[in-house]
């Protein structure tokens, strides 16, 4: 019994080590005084200083974040209403058909999607740049949002909507006061998935950036072709820290809400027993 416990722990440690070692390695060398990752020659902030002085890189980071925030927002809006629409479909075959179309977009290779966007945009005469990247990110995020939101809608009891009508709510009131709050977790999950997909995306973006506009992944790729600069390490370290803070913040927030809930329940109990 005890031995088994140890083994499983060892397994976990191994898995996490394999997952995190490359990142830690990268972080470690971001503080290197030397110019390469071959040898650690001493501690220095120099790569961070270069990064902050690199206005092109900073503006690309900002662009990337703006694209991610905007595309996720718009995709969440469209995807949520799309999921609501799909749920309303009476005919099972039609619903399955639309869902399959949705899933095909999810699994088809990014390269193909990227290439087809490129053809599409040039055909329509849309100038490549911020607009084309935003449009394509919105487009590939919508299926993700639909997939995250739809289960929440299915899970929600249909009777609850009847209850809202029963109490006099109009269609709009039922939607805003009952349906949307009930599926909020799904909407948030969809938003964050879309956000990270947009941040991550290389293949699609690579096709539609054009000249003059770039996102982080495309920029790092083009720089890496000339050999990795430790400035990239510094940037990655900062981004890793930011994601750690985000995850930690999310955890703290849920903990806070839980404890508040328990606290309130206790208070109510006491009030009643008095």
């Amino acid at each position, binding site marked *: 019994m005890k031995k088994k416990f140890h083994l499983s722990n060892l397994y976990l440690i191994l898995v996490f080590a394999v997952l995190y070692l490359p990142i830690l390695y990268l972080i470690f060398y971001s503080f290197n005084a030397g110019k390469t990752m071959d040898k650690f020659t001493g501690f220095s902030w120099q790569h961070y200083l270069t990064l902050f002085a690199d206005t092109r890189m900073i503006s690309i980071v900002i662009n990337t974040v703006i694209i991610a925030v905007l595309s996720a927002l718009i995709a969440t809006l469209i995807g949520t209403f799309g999921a609501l629409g799909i749920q309303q479909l009476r005919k099972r075959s039609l619903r399955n058909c639309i869902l399959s179309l949705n899933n095909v977009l999810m699994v088809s290779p990014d390269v193909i999607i990227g290439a087809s966007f490129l053809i599409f945009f040039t055909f329509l005469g849309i100038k490549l740049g911020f607009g084309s990247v935003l449009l394509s990110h919105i487009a590939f995020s919508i299926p993700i949002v639909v997939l995250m939101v739809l289960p929440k809608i299915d899970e929600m*009891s249909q*009777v*609850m909507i*009847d*209850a*809202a*009508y*029963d*109490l*006099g*709510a*109009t269609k709009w*009131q039922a939607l805003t*006061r*009952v349906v949307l*709050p*009930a599926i*909020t977790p799904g909407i948030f999950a969809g938003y964050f998935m879309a956000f990270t997909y947009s941040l991550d995306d290389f293949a699609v973006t690579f096709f539609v950036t054009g000249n003059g506009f770039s996102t982080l992944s495309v920029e790092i790729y083009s720089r890496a072709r000339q050999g990795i600069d430790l400035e990239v390490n510094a940037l990655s370290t900062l981004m890793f820290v930011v994601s750690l803070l985000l995850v930690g913040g999310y955890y703290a927030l849920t903990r806070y809400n839980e404890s508040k*809930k328990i606290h*309130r*329940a206790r*208070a*109510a109990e006491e*009030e*009643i027993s008095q």
Partner: protein
Amino acid sequence: MAGKVIEFRHVIKSFDETQVLKQIDFEIEAGKFYTLLGPSGCGKTTILRLIAGFLHPTSGEILFNGQTINEVPANQRQVNTVFQDYALFPHLNVEQNVAFGLEIKKVDKKIIKNKISDALKLVQLSGYGQRNIDELSGGQKQRVAIARAIVNEPKVLLLDEPLSALDHKLRKEMQGELRALQQRLGITFIFVTHDQEEALAMSDQIFVMNAGKILQSGTPVDIYDEPINHFVADFIGESNIIPGKMKDDYIVTFDGHDFECVDAGMKTNEAVEIVIRPEDLDIAPANTGKMNVTVDTQLFRGVDYQITAHDVNDNEWKINSIHKTTVGQMVGLNFDPEDIHVMRFGEDEATFDARLEQYE
């Protein structure tokens, strides 16, 4: 009395090709407690949903205070529903759930506050206002659902098997509370259940349904004592149903003997079924009663013994007796003429009522 609140005229409801309600006619008077009673799938919920406005009749008319409401949408009807699984809003607390209907109607905030506190007091949940829904027990959720409905002061309250998720004890308690609540508020209740005991205990008026039809309507006593047919007799409580023949007015033959009864108005020698309730049968020494039966089983139930026996024609008899007998023994059975209830085959409710009117 205030008269009819709801009336169904020849209402038929079909889903695709299947007719779920077959020509439903009834009237609901203001201020009474009505129960729709019937087995699973007979169409009880469908009737409630038609009244609430979630469904629309395939044909026929539904009237509310004398006005057709076939086309009135659910959110404009003066009825509220307590749903089978409560359908409370999980993202709102108790108070916000109860306030929902009033806020939609844009009632003044202060008035809402007062009404909520009154409603919560009525269902004995004062002090629970700030609780989340997932922090409530089944019985408490049930009460919140009732408070959320009655706070809107509907003309009619629809309750779809609201007690079915509760344990036996709480269920009994809530039956009493619901009945008391209805009498205090004076609102018409239409209550759905498939539990005959519950229906008999709570209602002013019961509609017994089967397979999309209302078979019989009446007070609990009427329906218990004078079921219209085999199905109703069997569904409402335990009963002995024996084939017989109507020899003449007030004389019925079964088990090879003639018995005096209180039913009449049938054809001579018409084949009928007779019903005798187990608690109306008294056990006597063999050959001293009106007939003899042999005891097969005996079960002690606390208040009485539940006995099954058979007669010479192999009809089974259920008897509830406070006296003990012995299994395998022959005993006599005694009953009064008014304990025998005669049912005709295929008689509809109108003819049944007219005949009873004439002869009883």
